[in-house]
């Protein structure tokens, strides 16, 4: 099996690994690099739990060929906090009960961060649109929407 070197920036740090032929970015991140925060849910691009940010855009890493990450900036939930200092989204998810089993959470956070990076004060409709590719099976959409509103400094159902 042929292997191909891939170099990219992962959460601001340079990474150089060998990718297997046909390997997807999700597998490369988890097995090759050891960043376990993106999750496998379906492998078909329907559940969103593998969402990462590539050059500012939310991307499904299970459908992204690992080689295509060459030279790009990849962000995962693993790099969301700055050491012990949590990102505003992480704090808001904790305070608003925006996770139950937690499996969809890293993907949700990435979808939300991509939104807030572009639109610092999104409307509720924009939030719903931004996380529409992410499935939460414990049915936590309302708390998640609340958390993203709270992270952007806007009133939630509870506080507003």
């Amino acid at each position, binding site marked *: 099996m042929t292997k191909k070197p891939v170099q990219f920036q992962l959460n601001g740090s340079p990474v150089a690994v060998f990718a297997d032929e046909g390997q997807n970015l999700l597998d490369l991140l988890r097995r090759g690099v050891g960043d376990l925060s993106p999750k496998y849910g379906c492998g078909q691009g329907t559940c969103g739990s593998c969402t990462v940010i590539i050059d500012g855009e939310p991307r499904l890493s299970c459908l992204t060929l690992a080689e295509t990450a060459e030279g790009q900036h990849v962000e995962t939930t693993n790099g969301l906090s700055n050491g012990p200092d949590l990102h505003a989204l992480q704090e808001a998810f904790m305070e608003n009960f925006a996770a139950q089993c937690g499996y969809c959470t890293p993907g949700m*956070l990435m979808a939300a961060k991509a939104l807030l990076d572009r639109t610092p004060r999104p409307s509720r409709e924009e939030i719903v649109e931004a996380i529409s590719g992410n499935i939460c099976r414990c049915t936590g959409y309302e708390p998640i929407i609340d958390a993203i509103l709270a992270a952007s400094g806007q009133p939630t159902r509870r506080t507003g």
Partner: protein
Amino acid sequence: MSSVEFRKDLFADERDDNLQEIGKPTRRQDILGHVTGRSPYYDDHLFDGLLHMRCVRSPHHHARIRSIDTSQAERMPGVVRVVLARDVPNNLNTLLSLINFGKDEEKLIQDTKVAYAGEPVAAIIAETEGQAREACAAVRVDYEVLPHVLDPEASLKPDAPVVNEVYPNNTFDYHDLYDHQKLRFGDVEKGFSEADHIVEGEYQMSPIEQAPIETCGAIAAPETNDRFVCYTSTQALFFSLGTTAKLLNMPSSRLHFVGGTVGGGFGGKVDSIVEPLSVLGAVLTGRPVKFMWDRAEEMQVGAPRGAERWRIKDGVARDGRILARTFTGFFDAGAYTRLSSYAIIKCTGHIPGPYSIPNVASNVYCVFTNRTPATAMRGFGITGVDFAIECHVDKVAETVGLNPIELRILNAYRDGDMKPHRRLAKNTALIECCQVASQKSGWAISADAARQSSLTGGGGTRAVIPESITDSVGRIGERRRADVPTEPGAGAPSRGRVAAGTQGIPIVAAAPQDEDMITDPARMGFRHAPAVSQPPRTAPSVPVPPVAAASAAPPSAAPPAGQQSAPPPQPVAPQPSAPQPAAPQAPTAASDPAPAPYKPEQPFSRGVKRPGVSRFLSGSRRR
């Protein structure tokens, strides 16, 4: 110290008793791991040299296996081991055998006959998942396709194919006695004859896949101390451990199971299928092995909530009181039992829903079909029958022309009422729920209905177990795939009036086993449940229950309006000259105030031998 007080004492520093938590978010204990992506799901454990296992699955609903040819697959690149049925040391199990319930019937890997599409017939262990997939596709299985059955009622026909040879009637056999769960309370025929309306309905629910975002899976690896560690997505860690020990014929002390971080379960991760296979892979290869379902497998062979079909027949008085209700239920267990046998027991205990109905009968069948085996899912056993009951209550309300909320309040159970499974209702709140629902929805109810309370009007005559009609339809040995009616009471070969209870044995109502199970007298209105079934106060030859003879209305259908807290039922002293019921155990037990609470002869900490508990769960197999 009751267990509740003990809990308060032990966790005193964790939270106070003022649980005013509703309506505000609470920070979860495990939330930091979730938002930082560091919660350790089973697949987040990395191993050097990890092998990947995948299953070869049957494309047919029902087929005999003539031969399995793995020679080509064995030569495929990356293939380390092909696993067949003969590699499983003890290849027959049923999940609930760990609590001695049901017969062993399901193979981990099938070698003779597949009974559902997707049943595993072989497994491939390879260096990469892709290689395992390719090798699976190269396994040649010669099937002789058999006729299949996918509908539970068609499965009960005499000419239906036998799905599961261990249960040749296509029904789970309860205690080797009956082919269904039977509930008999009062006399439904009499209730129907007194009713002004008969309301019938049929309700059906499809199978539902739990669909957790994390698919089922496990990683097993040899440890350095002759044990195997298994990281698993299971919701039932010790069940998985016991099942693995049994299937692999291995002392449970050699298994080190790590779980607890589950990426969504909803009942779909209790079946202990992935753990035995991954541990077997580690045993056979001496290397770490991951067995993980992909999404397609999760949807196809992940055991769903089973399909259910319900027929309900109500006898209703003109004023809306439900006088009698019968149920005929069919649970589609799929090809193997898994937990369906238990679901039927749950639903039979739940019948007839949160209502006090004086005459109730049900026959509920756990039926095998050539579909994916069904298992647990969020309230399984209750959800389907509740859906049917509430649809049916609306239909009753429509028939008699009553407000459906008022009809529910009229028929609601109240504290102290005897439920058909012979337990007193307590902490009931249907009436209060209906009142709140009517307020919130702006759906007006009458002033009388708004005044009712679950705390009053129950008990008294409503706490009595009535004389109950029984029959022996479906007794194992008589019904051998004969085309007999399944409705309660229909086609009964012998009918007779027997004392309350089953098989002529009087039922002791809710004997308290522990302090905190004892009925609170202030809440219930009397100190103890009637300790035994009340002896009939008239001669047993009179074919009318005594309470019904005293007043025209059936016992538990007395109009609740104006009733205050019912006085404690005075035990009727049996007259020595009065005819005794069929099972004359009542006098001594009735004079006895309460049976002594159960106390083990020696503390559990010293290792009490508990009959009926599997050796695979206890420590008896530790060496």
